[in-house]
């Protein structure tokens, strides 16, 4: 049987200052860990929401990003006629020829400017995405007009309706703000395909072609048809795979976050071990008394280990609470694929919180194991003689 848990909780309360200081260290480590996981989860959510599971992205063979890819208009015409492509309501194939480049926009955080993805596309490209206008109107073909994503509008002061932004060969008027939900499309600027490709002197080619398959079964067949067609020098990947790869953009930040939390956790682990050792020394007489009353070494070990785990568990919960407000924080990360900024919201989900709690409990168990063992192994008479 265990020593009552109230013995441990009250002992933690008795030494308030050391308990609070150790708990703060653990809470901070957990908060950083949860933040790192929330960052990756947020980024992953954005990219997952960007992709339509029925859509294929066609790039030049060997290309792994739209920015470095070229697909000719001739190839686009071949691609439109491949079987397995879904049609829109007018009977036209859902195939969008798109040109992708970057524009440099100054922001309040970065006055020198950050790269933002510029996408030239036709109305079918808009139809193939799950976006809607928040304000203003769509750009018109043949005009130097653009629509900006919601995140671009929020993060860049110059990207407001009615303002002009400069990229390509001159100024572009912002006519609307679009909302793509929790997706990377909110971090893009869209304009007319012909107008933008003209600005970048790419009238005969595009960066990519987006195709929508009729159903999940024909998606694979469509992919093979594109890749196996000898007239095309193209590779195709599902939109989902393409954006999944971009989640890796958050990997360095995730690594850094985990590294920092692990380093802090090592410090917190030593702090936990330190206060638990102090508790074992200070409570020697109590340990001797408990043993005299009949509590076994196992019970004593479990009691001190529980105290350590209780401390770290509560601190872990505090760390989770500290990290929770991140759910309302939007930030941006530079994508290594598109060389532009992707805005996303941290996503503190149940898995991140659980990971934080487990991390804290493991930390408490590791820090408390040796002191608990020392407590359990005390000889009764030696323990009773301790002050």
């Amino acid at each position, binding site marked *: *049987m*265990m*020593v*009552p848990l*109230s*013995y441990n909780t*009250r*002992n933690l309360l*008795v030494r308030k200052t050391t308990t609070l200081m150790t708990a703060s260290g653990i809470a901070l480590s957990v908060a950083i860990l949860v933040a790192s996981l929330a960052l990756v989860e947020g980024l992953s959510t954005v990219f997952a929401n960007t992709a339509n599971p029925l859509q294929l992205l066609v790039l030049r063979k060997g290309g792994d990003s739209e920015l470095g890819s070229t697909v000719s208009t001739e190839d686009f015409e071949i691609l439109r006629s491949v079987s397995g492509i879904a049609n829109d309501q007018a009977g036209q194939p859902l195939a969008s020829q798109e040109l992708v480049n970057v524009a440099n926009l100054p922001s309040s955080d970065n006055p020198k400017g950050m790269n933002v993805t510029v996408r030239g596309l036709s109305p079918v490209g808009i139809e193939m995405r799950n976006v809607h206008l928040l304000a203003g109107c769509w750009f018109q073909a043949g005009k130097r007009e653009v629509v900006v994503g919601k995140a671009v509008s929020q993060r860049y002061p110059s990207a407001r309706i009615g303002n002009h932004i400069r990229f390509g060969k001159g100024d572009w008027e912002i006519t609307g703000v679009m909302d793509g939900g929790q997706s990377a499309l909110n971090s893009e600027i869209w304009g007319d395909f012909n107008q933008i490709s003209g600005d970048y002197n790419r009238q005969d080619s595009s960066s990519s072609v987006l195709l929508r398959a009729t159903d999940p079964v024909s998606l694979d067949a469509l992919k093979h048809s594109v890749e196996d067609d000898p007239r095309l020098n193209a590779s195709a990947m599902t939109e989902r795979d393409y954006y999944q790869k971009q989640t890796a953009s958050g990997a360095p930040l995730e690594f850094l976050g985990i590294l920092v939390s692990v380093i802090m956790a090592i410090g917190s682990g030593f702090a936990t071990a330190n206060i638990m050792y102090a508790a074992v020394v200070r409570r020697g*007489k*109590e340990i*001797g*008394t*408990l*043993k*005299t*009353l*009949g*509590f*076994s*070494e*196992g019970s004593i070990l479990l009691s001190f280990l529980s105290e350590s785990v209780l401390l770290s568990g509560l601190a872990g919960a505090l760390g989770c609470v500290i990290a929770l407000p991140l759910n309302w924080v939007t930030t941006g990360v530079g994508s290594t694929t598109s060389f532009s900024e992707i805005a996303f919201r941290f996503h503190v989900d149940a898995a991140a919180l659980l990971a934080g709690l487990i991390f804290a409990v493991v930390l408490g168990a590791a820090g408390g194991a040796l002191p608990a063992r020392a407590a359990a192994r005390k000889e*009764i*008479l030696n323990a*009773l003689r301790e002050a």
Partner: protein
Amino acid sequence: MEVVIETRELSKDYMRDENPVTALKGVDLRMTGGEFLALMGPSGSGKSTLLHLIAAMDRPSSGEVLVLGQDLRALGKRELARWRNRHIGFIFQAFNLIPVLTALENVMLPLKLTGLRAKQQLEHATTALELVGLGDRLHHFPRQLSGGQEQRVAIARAIVTDPDFILADELTGNLDASSANDVLALLCALNSGHRKTILMVTHDPHAAHYARTTRYLDKGVLLPEGQVPQDWMAAPLPHASAAMSPAQMQSH
């Protein structure tokens, strides 16, 4: 009468500052059920060592301790812990209450190791505290009690499991005269009213006065019944006291 405690040729040696010290030398002691024995002797005579060996808190260098016929040498650490819980109630000089637990929780501690349900544990602990006159102090923490009350909580904790015998180590050492008399009277009542077997270690002749019998230890040797160490002869003998102890009164 059933033999509760028996030691045979019990010896204990240990090292102090690299010098061998003999704490006990071939002690033969027998206690039967319902006995109340005071073990006296000067500091360093081996009284507490004998008590610790009987309580299985220490291992003898040689000889054996038989409690209710059970040889304690045959028990492992876990069995000894269980044995202590089931068979002995130990009262410390410094009370040794857990400061963060209330009187009731302190008394309930040994019951956690029994198969009793929580409600029964609560009832048993309350009864034990009422028995020692602390029914109105159940939820007080040790710091809120006087020394005498703390020792009474410790006595309640020692008897709550209804052990086969009670071991008391200088239980009046930290108490004033009035509180000491109270707890000694309580011990007497437990012995006479509840037939508890009690072995009390003390160097206080007044405390020993409350026991039915007194034995002396001198330099680790248990003296025969009725024999007192030479250097104690000058001091007034507890049983020669004009006032009769409660135990003596009952035996007359």
